[in-house]
């Protein structure tokens, strides 16, 4: 793959919200690349900043939030664009699919109106018949019968509404889609359908997909690469199979151990809670919960190290760089119940 295939790239991207206690660093220096036709899974606990990152890519952040660093779409510096130019990318170039499909369609508008509106916004010259033909084609592809074209959103089930959301995005043929937990609110059978649709979508129109999820099973099934996010940072990113087989970062490892399957005999979890993003821990953000923490982890953020194409930010990956004496295992008091609460 050449560099020209890169659809979206972020370099040191930071997003923070102003609060009364100070800025919440929801995304704190994130770098990644996404190529055409590629799916990147973004996993992490609730509150680690993955949804914020997804929204930031489309400039859908709430008022009072700030973004800096570098974000490029097909080589263009997105953050340097005017607001109107940035917003003009939405729909036709960048699209987003959300977690709760039930509330994402305008309850007062027919499905037909949603499609006509979206197409007409991006291709003003399209005639009525052409609009209809194209909407019908997309609907057919997602398995919604043409007779439902005049229906209202409330006449569809959650799974159908999510398919409609995908169809609406698909009709505009975007180059990049953020799917923010698109199947979390749906049952397992519908989940499989939705993932299948997303898969078809990228093979048909070569869309790059950022799939945000907390379900590692979905990543294993649907993603080429995976990025593991913790406390606003990507701690490990690489080929999904490689990362799952051979996690470099203790957080990834612990996360994988915490998944539930039929062979699970006891539940594993990571003690403690995700850190406060107003005042994140010093050094490596994960050190208070890390079973492998060393003295160095408390003071200095680990360098990002590449091995076999996978990037990980952990001192274990670069033992040679640790200052002498700082590789002592971190001694700390047991995490008390009070800390966990």
């Amino acid at each position, binding site marked *: 793959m050449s560099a020209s295939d890169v659809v979206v790239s972020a370099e040191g991207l930071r997003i923070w919200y102003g609060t009364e206690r100070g800025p919440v660093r929801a995304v704190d220096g994130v770098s990644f690349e996404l190529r055409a036709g590629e799916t990147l899974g973004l996993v992490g606990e609730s509150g680690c900043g993955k949804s914020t990152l997804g929204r930031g890519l489309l400039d*859908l952040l709430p008022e009072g939030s700030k973004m800096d660093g570098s974000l490029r779409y097909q080589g263009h510096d997105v953050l340097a664009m005017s607001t109107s130019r940035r*917003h003009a990318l939405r*729909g036709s170039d960048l699209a987003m699919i959300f977690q709760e499909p039930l509330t994402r369609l305008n309850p*007062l508008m027919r499905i037909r109106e949603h499609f006509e509106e*979206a197409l007409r916004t991006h291709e003003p010259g399209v005639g009525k018949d052409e609009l209809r033909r194209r909407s019908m084609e997309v609907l057919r592809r997602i398995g919604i019968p043409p007779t439902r074209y005049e229906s209202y959103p409330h006449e569809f089930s959650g799974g159908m509404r999510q398919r409609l959301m995908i169809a609406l*995005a698909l009709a505009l043929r975007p180059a990049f889609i953020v799917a923010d937990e698109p199947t979390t609110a749906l049952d397992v059978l519908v989940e499989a359908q939705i993932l299948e649709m997303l898969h078809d979508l990228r093979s048909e129109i070569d869309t790059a997909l950022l799939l945000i999820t907390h379900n590692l099973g979905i990543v294993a099934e649907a993603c080429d690469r995976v990025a593991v996010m913790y406390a606003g940072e990507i701690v490990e990113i690489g080929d999904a199979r490689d990362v799952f087989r051979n996690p470099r970062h203790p957080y990834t490892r612990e996360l994988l151990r915490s998944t539930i399957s039929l062979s699970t005999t006891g539940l594993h979890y990571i003690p403690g809670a995700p850190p406060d993003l107003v005042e994140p821990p010093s050094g490596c953000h994960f050190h208070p919960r890390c079973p492998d923490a060393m003295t160095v982890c408390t003071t200095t953020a680990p360098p990002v190290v590449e091995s076999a194409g996978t990037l990980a930010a952990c001192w274990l990956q670069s033992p040679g760089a640790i200052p002498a004496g700082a590789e002592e295992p971190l001694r700390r008091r047991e995490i008390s119940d009070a800390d966990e609460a």
Partner: protein
Amino acid sequence: MSPGSLPRYIVQRLLLIVPMIWVILTLVFLVLRVAPGDPVTAAVGDRLSAEALAERRAALGLDRPLLQQYLEYLGNVARLDFGQTISDNIPIIDIVRDNGGATLTLALAGLLFALLVGVPLGAVAGRRRDSISDVVIRLFGVITYAAPVFFVGLLAKLFFSVQLGWFPTSDIATPITKFQVETRTRILLLDAALGGDTDAVIDILHHLVLPAVTLGLLLCGVFIRLVRVNMLQSLKADYVEAARARGITERRVTSAYAFRNALVPFVTVLGLQIALLLAGAVLTESTFNWPGLGTRLIDYITARDYIAVQGIVTLFAVVVVLISLLVDVVNALIDPRIRY
């Protein structure tokens, strides 16, 4: 969810009017009789001897037991006979016919003003939350809602009529207009328009401006708050974010998504505001000497004319119920999710 259930709902609501009217009649009946004085004392109390007063009361049937008067009145109403006023012997039906048009004109004009001014202002305030325009609009809304109608009316009269001389101080039209316009519908403005009398129409509209604005301002404050709050809600809705993510223009998001969805709850409570509109109309009419039902109602309350007050209040109640029913039907048409 069957589409045929809307007619059934309408019939149900219409049937509910009967018990409601009974409650209102009973309440009005009791309140009027608990209030000190009666029609006879109010009319001639200081001029006649006690015996003569008692005689007059007996003639009107006011000396009979309350329950008997009550049942007799209910019986008459059930036969749609609202009776005649005690003080001037006019059938209630005639009062409604002769004065209803003026009240209707005023109420509609006030409502129109409130809708045209209050709804857009509320939408702007909601769209630009916490901006200067939002603060100014909110302040305007609170003041117009809190200020008593008669006070606003008096100030408007003092300034625009007396000081500036732009508008007449009272009544619905000049005597000449009233005399010239041929009676057809008994709604003076409509009659003038139907007769093609442009001068009369202008004269009536000229008289209408101040009362309509006074009444409209009262509702305007309510509308601003309602639309603003609902606009804020719908702007936060998930479908608004999704529309932005699809690249729908901000203008269209505001109008077709936020504003349209904000109107649904607004229309729902609009029905309730009709009561406020009519209450405001009564006060506005008496402030501007507008020859409508409100002015008459206040006259008859002063005269302790039980029959007249009962009749007019009942009419107001029926109007409120019918309009709130109409609002429900309109709402079902706006919002495809609503099926009764």
